[in-house]
């Protein structure tokens, strides 16, 4: 019985983390999947969101900046706003870069953020991080506080999914995909490509900021290591590519799937003897890479492919939204 309970709590924790990664993946899907923006700095926006809410919602502390004891909801909204503002600044500088250069620039900017967070000890408590971040529903008894958090995360994923699906099927999604497919032709079709790309970049970054804020509240702790390129950027990219780029359902499925693989392999590696455990940490990265290879061999466009408007299915309501 006790063991079953343990598995239940573990499953709730696993799904909550998977849901938070789904938020991050949905954000990246707007940028890469819809619009073709190669953002290799997911971790940066994740960190901005996490630290913003951490500063705003914790109790005052001598160790770090902030401590305004705001409610978690306000922290999450502020996290989205902060990420959006910084994304606007980043986009102003590098949105016109070709995709590979955009990747280099965003990766570099995210690393700058991480190093600032690590070294500006007076504000961020450096590598020791910010702790005692309040978690929604933590006053509820175990395990209901965990279950409530899971439900909150899934409600957020569901709302985002609904909004982004509508955006994707609307002319908005169509024009973003047109930019992804052929920038010159989109310009020749009268589209203000730079403005639209900036819009997609900001929206995606705001959602990544929300993901970071959720993570901070869920773990109750944030440090610069959580914004490492491998655990934040790389993993989110793998999730999107495996699940299916440009498909919102694919983004969510990919996040849950890859997080489950990533997380359950950790159970095995932590039980190995110490000298092996250290090496096994790298084996996990290898295993995720292998999974990526195998899945892309079988499903080149990811598990769920991109779907486009087909008139045969919309013949009865012509033009009534591009439902695939």
């Amino acid at each position, binding site marked *: 019985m006790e063991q079953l309970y343990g598995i239940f709590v573990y499953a709730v924790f696993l799904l909550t983390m998977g849901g938070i990664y789904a938020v991050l993946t949905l954000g990246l899907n707007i940028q890469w999947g819809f619009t073709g923006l190669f953002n290799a700095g997911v971790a940066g926006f994740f960190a901005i969101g996490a630290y913003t809410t951490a500063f705003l919602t914790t109790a005052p502390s001598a160790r770090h900046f902030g401590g305004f004891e705001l409610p978690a909801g306000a922290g999450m909204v502020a996290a989205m706003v902060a990420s959006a503002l910084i994304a606007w600044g980043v986009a102003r500088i590098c949105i016109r870069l070709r995709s590979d250069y955009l990747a280099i620039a965003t990766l570099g900017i995210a690393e700058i953020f991480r190093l600032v967070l690590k070294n500006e000890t007076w504000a961020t408590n450096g590598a020791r991080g910010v702790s005692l971040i309040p978690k929604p529903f933590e006053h509820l008894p175990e395990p209901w506080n965990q279950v409530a958090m899971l439900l909150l995360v899934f409600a957020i994923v569901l709302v985002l999914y609904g909004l982004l699906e509508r955006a994707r099927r609307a*002319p908005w999604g169509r024009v973003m995909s047109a930019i992804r497919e052929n920038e010159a032709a989109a310009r020749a079709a009268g589209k203000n*490509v730079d403005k639209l790309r900036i819009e997609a970049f900001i929206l995606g970054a705001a959602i990544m900021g929300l993901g970071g804020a959720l993570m901070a509240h869920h773990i109750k702790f944030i440090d610069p290591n959580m914004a490492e390129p491998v655990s934040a950027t790389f993993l989110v990219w793998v999730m999107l590519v495996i699940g299916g780029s440009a498909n919102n359902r694919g983004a969510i499925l990919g996040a849950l799937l890859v997080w489950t693989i990533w997380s359950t392999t950790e159970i095995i590696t932590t039980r190995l003897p110490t000298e092996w455990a250290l090496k096994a940490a790298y084996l996990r990265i290898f295993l995720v890479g292998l999974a990526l290879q195998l899945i892309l061999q079988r499903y080149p466009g990811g598990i769920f492919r*991109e779907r486009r408007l087909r008139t045969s299915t919309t013949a009865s309501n012509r033009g009534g939204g591009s439902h695939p």
Partner: protein
Amino acid sequence: MDTNPDRTVSGAAAPPILAVEALTRSFGGLTAVDRCSFRVDAGRITGIIGPNGAGKTTIFNMVAGALPPSSGRILFDGDDVSSLPTHELFHRGIVRTFQIPHEFGRLTVLENLMVVPTSQPGERLWRVWTSPARVRRREREVWERAEDTLRFLTLWDLRDELATNLSGGQKKLLELGRAMMTEPRLVLLDEPGAGVNPTLLVKLRDMIRQLNQRRGYTFVIIEHDMDLIASLCERVIVLAEGSVLTEGTMDAVRRDPRVIDAYLGGGGEGGAAHGG
């Protein structure tokens, strides 16, 4: 300048819809377009011919706002539009097609056209989420226009196909279709006939003519197919080495020894390239 200021074919009163004045563009040490000047009359089909490297596409790129001129002016309908961005020129009515088709590959053929029209409330995220009825209404209009266009282009049966799967010729038709999705005042066609099979080429020619006569589109066409130019254009501008060599009717231009010279690189060993 070789541009003939006292040309009075269509009544001297009508100002040209497009006037290019001493337009110049250099790339490093190479001057691709060199103080080039010409005018285009509204409602007509004007051809631009010239050997490879004469600067034809570079001029199109500048007129369409894809490339800023090094110097000189572009007047559209009397306004100086030099260096305006492409999307603003589009809103003023300048639409261009590409020599190598630029389709939206992983969008369907229908979507390729539905992207184009302006003032689509559904392109604003806020409207998508707050006034879906308005978005849907406009979307229906856009759909109908795209359907009409695809039927005209005889591509309606391919509407659900991803554009990347079309043949080269069909992609050329789609390029023309993009221009038809707005109210263009000047359509720049960059080698519409290149890579198009002879049967389709006849169709394409008839379509261009119909659009000019029935809808009053003004065309400027870059083309190497002299028969296509001869059958469509009353007036032809010949470019060589970045500036206007001569202009006139296709017949007059064909007989001009300087034109033959330009095409044959100054060798002058016969006019075989011109088939006439």
